[in-house]
């Protein structure tokens, strides 16, 4: 159309493309190239090794990853769907409260969550040992570890995906649809199977795919709980620590292929026509439970669920009060104090990781804040050739497991390149903020897109019509409009970066070790209290951010995932 418009679009696209190519595409390609190299020459040897009999462990790990992920989907759905149905369709005392508690697992960063589960249900955990003492058993009655541990943690941390999609789908179903079916003579059960369930399917499929991808990428749970059990994301880490970069690259490529295949499948599925309808004035309708027996069993179910769900948080809080040396070989902690928190501010060794995490997360957060605004604006409000491609490029870091993102960066920046200004980044401070930045691009872009798509084009045109130039319009009209979305996305990126473990463990140096690495160190030294105190800092930060986002930007925590 007009040259000035086109010039502006191109000016916007230049930095976006540079960053995406430099820090997303180029590292992925480096990994791909590396996977085809053996001793510096091109070969298919790595893939031969992966699938061949020589390294059966790789194939086993792939298989384990897939099968754990499938089971995770199954168990998450098994918990999430009925819980959502009960809490959204029946009214009983405390319903609102229980349904708020139901999404509490999302405030636990994965490493901290796993740690809490270990404290609770591990071999030396509080619950098995309490049972042992209570019933005077000679052995702990059960403990988690290996597959069962991973699955339990996955089900706990991932069922909210099902819970939230089912809840929102249920609330969006026009009650008159179900009423129409009753009116036509259907029974309760057949209404559920014939009307409600089909309307829920699109959301459920999306949640299943999401949980599958997240479990494939899961790192913290297997890292702490797997024992001898192999999964692919962990194998990458082992290959890297053994110095076998070629194999790590190959494993990364294979894990990426699986994940990206799922991402594409998900996009395809979501773009398919679904049967959601826009009907006006829908309100969730809940049947009041009048049968007292049923009512009180629902309340008790709510209470039990609440205890189970909050136990990890409570454990973390309690253990963070256990000073060093007060819980090593003993069954129960011996003393409580604020020692761990005091040390945070007095011992620089203890404070350093917190400072590192905050600084690095802040840098990454600033980066995604600016980059997210520009990218989202270009994607939503500008037309240009190759937009779809750009969109996919933006979403790649989301589809790639964190371990793979870490490997990509290692392989790209362990030698000087134009994108690192001719420096080797691996082993420096900057590699970690960069990794966090790459990891959380999609999060900010998505949350900004959501707001920007709501903004009618005519708003910008109105400003122009009143005589405002493009930049003035952008600054005074567009920016203030999208700020809630950008800020909540960036804040969430910030707290997730503070808790980020998989990329940290691949890329940290002694100088910039973040909180999650220090948690591992403290666990290794059996200083469980200090580890829990670090965990509490992360939980506290997340809780504050979610609260602020909700209170001041009106963003529901559900929408930010």
């Amino acid at each position: 159309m007009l040259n000035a418009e086109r010039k502006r679009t191109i000016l916007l696209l230049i930095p976006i493309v540079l960053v995406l190519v430099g820090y997303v595409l180029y590292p992925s390609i480096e990994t791909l190239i590396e996977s085809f190299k053996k001793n510096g020459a091109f070969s298919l040897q790595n893939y031969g090794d992966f699938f061949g009999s020589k390294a059966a462990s790789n194939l086993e790990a792939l298989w384990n990853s897939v099968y754990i992920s499938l089971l995770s989907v199954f168990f998450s759905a098994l918990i999430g769907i009925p819980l959502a149905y009960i809490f959204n369709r029946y009214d009983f005392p405390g319903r609102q409260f229980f349904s708020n508690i139901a999404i509490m697992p999302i405030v636990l960063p994965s490493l901290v969550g796993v740690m809490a589960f270990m404290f609770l249900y591990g071999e030396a955990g509080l619950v098995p040992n309490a049972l042992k003492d209570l019933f005077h058993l000679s052995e702990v009655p059960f403990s988690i570890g290996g597959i069962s541990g991973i699955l339990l943690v996955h089900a706990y941390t991932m069922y909210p995906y099902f819970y939230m999609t089912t809840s929102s789908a249920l609330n969006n179903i026009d009650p008159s649809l179900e009423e129409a079916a009753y009116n036509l003579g259907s029974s309760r059960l057949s209404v559920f199977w014939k009307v409600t369930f089909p309307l829920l399917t699109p959301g459920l499929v999306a949640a299943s795919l999401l949980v599958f991808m997240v479990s494939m990428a899961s790192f913290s749970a297997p890292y702490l709980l797997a024992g001898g059990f192999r999964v692919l994301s962990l194998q990458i880490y082992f290959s890297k620590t053994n110095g076998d970069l070629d194999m790590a690259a190959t494993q990364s490529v294979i894990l990426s292929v699986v994940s990206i295949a799922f991402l594409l499948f998900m996009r395809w599925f979501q773009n398919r026509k679904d049967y959601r309808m826009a009907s006006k004035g829908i309100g969730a309708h809940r049947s009041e439970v009048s049968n007292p027996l049923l009512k009180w069993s629902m309340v008790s179910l709510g209470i039990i669920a609440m205890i189970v769900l909050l136990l990890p948080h409570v454990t973390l809080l309690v253990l963070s009060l256990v000073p060093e040396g007060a819980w090593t070989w003993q069954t129960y902690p011996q003393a409580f104090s604020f020692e761990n928190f005091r040390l945070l501010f007095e011992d620089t060794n203890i404070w350093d990781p917190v400072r590192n995490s905050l600084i690095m997360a802040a840098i990454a957060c600033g980066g995604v804040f600016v980059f997210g605004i520009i990218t989202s604006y270009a994607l939503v409000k500008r037309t240009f050739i190759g937009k779809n491609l750009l969109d996919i490029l933006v979403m790649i870091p989301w589809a790639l497991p964190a371990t793979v993102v870490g490997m990509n960066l290692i392989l790209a920046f362990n030698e000087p390149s134009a994108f690192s200004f001719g420096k080797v980044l691996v082993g420096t401070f900057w590699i970690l903020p960069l990794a966090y930045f790459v990891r959380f691009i999609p999060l900010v872009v998505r949350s900004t897109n959501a707001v920007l798509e709501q903004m009618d084009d005519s708003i910008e045109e109105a400003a122009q019509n009143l005589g405002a130039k493009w930049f003035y319009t952008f600054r005074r009209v567009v920016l203030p409009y999208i700020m809630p979305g950008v800020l909540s996305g960036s804040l969430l990126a910030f707290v997730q970066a503070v808790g980020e473990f998989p990329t940290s463990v691949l890329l940290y140096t002694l100088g910039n070790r973040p909180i999650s690495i220090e948690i591992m160190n403290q666990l290794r030294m059996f200083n469980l209290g200090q580890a829990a105190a670090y965990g509490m800092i992360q939980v506290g930060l997340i809780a504050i951010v979610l609260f602020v986002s909700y209170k001041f930007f009106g963003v529901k925590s559900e929408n930010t995932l």
Partner: protein
Amino acid sequence: MSTVNLSTITKRFGNVTAVKELDLKIKEGEFFTFLGPSGCGKTTTLRMIAGFYYPTEGKVKFNEKDMTTVPPEKRNTGMVFQNYALFPHMTVYENVAFGLKVRKTDKKETRSRVEDVLNKVRLGQYIDRQVSQLSGGQQQRVALARALVIEPDILLLDEPLSNLDARLRDEMRNEILRLQREYGITTIYVTHDQVEALTMSDRIAVFNFGECQQVGTPSEIYNKPVNDFVAAFIGETNLFSIKPDKEEEGTAVFQSADFDKSIYVDHTEENIASYAEGEELVMSIRPEAVRILKDSVDGNNVFKGKVSLVQFTGASVHTYIEMENGAQIRATDLNHGPSTYLKEGTSVSFQLPQNQIRVIPKAGE
């Protein structure tokens, strides 16, 4: 204030031609309306004047100054969008002051001008409200104030009343007219509501399929449509295909398959539109011009039929009459009480006054 001059403007989107070879001259201070069915290119034309689209061919001029490729922010037009496009994160004051701020008007003057215009649209006491807390009609007035306060050369309104209920719409029509007269701004108004167009406009342009069919005053458009599209689109009418037969001292005679006798029409410019040789012709007679006769009289254009339906609409009564060969005609009369309603099935005569018939060519397509 300025004139707007569109010369042979064409706008294509891919292979869709939204506006085709449009020629328009809008005078200074005029209230000019674009009228036409959905998708006929009204918004597209308006957006070319505002500068959001650039014509594929042709020129846009304000006061003889070529504006064809001038960006929107340099045109000094004030636009009221169909959805108002108020800035949701700003108060009423901030919304209205936006254009003045861009123009670097000093603070004191901005304040007084904003207050002034808000009083004019009767929103003085809402100055510090958030725009989301206003009713639809109030939001529309803020949009209007925001466009007016910059003292635009041209005011552009794209269906600004379509979201309002009937009462409020009536009120707002008067409000807009009052303000337009007060400021004397050249105004272009887009609507597909014909009553709105007829009551408000100095002149109207009727569009169909991206082509301007006719430009004229409301009375010209209604009484002297240039083709059957305009005749049928504006107001109600009866249309019949006719063929020229002969001329008799000041009267043209036509034949129609729908009528058993010849039709006589005064041969004046009022009654017979210009048409080319061989064009298909149509005659249009407004229902209020059809005269139902109590007693059978002799004379030109008197026909017989049976009443097939009587519709009572309040102020007026529609009577549908079916002729022997099946053609139907509608007559509308003011309501004179139940005793005057005809019974269905009654045989009646009716006359088509020969100075009220309009002979027009069929529109292309």
